[in-house]
């Protein structure tokens, strides 16, 4: 089934809500882009596959520095380890998946987050276009990325929210 822009926006909104809760509303969304040829991956990535009423994927990818200050704000961690970065992204994307499941209902399936560093372990099929939203905090960048199959977005009259 197709997704209205309000539905697509939900994924970003719920991600921002989580990040802003931890950062005391200091996340600054930069100008987004639509990418046709390549995916953007930073040091660490948490990815969720979407099935059912939304087909594709959504992920958050962030630099180590971003995750470092994020973890410090969250848990006052001082020592930064690979595992800490993964934990931070796992929490971000687990929250995203849980909220999306609740929001969209039983016809929608979000996978458990797949956390990886640098590049994905398994190939990701590139949809015709992905939406990339840079998120800035303390001069460090994270990216919210969503890629949907075209059939999910064709009918403008349909909205899961309506």
């Amino acid at each position, binding site marked *: 089934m197709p997704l209205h*822009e309000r539905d697509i926006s939900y994924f*970003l909104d719920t991600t921002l809500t989580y990040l802003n809760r931890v950062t005391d509303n200091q996340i600054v969304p930069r*100008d987004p882009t639509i990418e046709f040829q390549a995916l953007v991956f930073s040091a660490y990535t948490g990815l969720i596959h979407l099935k059912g009423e939304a087909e594709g994927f959504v992920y958050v990818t962030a630099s180590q520095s971003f995750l470092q200050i994020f973890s410090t704000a969250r848990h006052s961690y001082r020592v930064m380890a690979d595992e800490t970065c993964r934990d931070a992204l796992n929490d971000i994307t687990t929250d995203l998946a849980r909220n999306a499941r609740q929001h969209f209902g039983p016809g929608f399936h979000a996978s458990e987050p797949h956390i990886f560093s640098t590049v994905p372990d398994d190939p990701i099929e590139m949809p015709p276009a992905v939406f990339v939203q840079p998120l800035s905090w303390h001069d460090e960048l994270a990216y919210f990325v969503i890629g949907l199959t075209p059939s999910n977005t064709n009918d403008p009259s349909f909205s899961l929210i309506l």
Partner: protein
Amino acid sequence: MTGSDIYKRTAVYERDAATLRLYPQEWKLLLAFDGQRTLEETARSSETSPADALRHAEKFLQNGWIEEQPITLDQYLKRTGTTERTSTVPLASVSHPPQPEPALQTPTASATPPTPPSDKPKERVLRLGAVIDHLLSLADSRSLGYFLAYRVFLRVPLELLQAEEIASVHLAGEAGLARGEKLQQAIAQAVQAIARQPLPESAFASA
């Protein structure tokens, strides 16, 4: 929109000014509109290139931050009395739907016999930034406008984008062009299908 048009800032701008987020060059241009000078003069005074001035001004116009300032007969005659207006050409090269561009660009042309129609259709390009601005204007919020644009571009055949080496589209300040007729048609059809609004003629520019 032509380089000889005069614009002024609007009440909408006054209302929104405190919350607007623009690049410094955009602010410079926006604040230079005084309802007295032409777009060409405003661009020059704000040290903005004609192409950028046109692009920014169309964005301001679509957002309702500026509006065209009506002029007196004296001002009109003064402006049209000069036939050599070559310096306005760069700004006048993009059409705008409410008023046919050639009539505004060279008003004296109405006194000359009409030229016979050319066999060759006029080539034009589609400004991707204008497409995005149009979609943003249709959405309830800027954020939703971004996703509306995403839905539109998901519908555009990838091979047509690749053929013109369009690897990405910036949803703010995009300066790219769609040159091929097939890609232009595909984008226009996608806008119509998703937004249920036709693409405005102002999104096109002379090649």
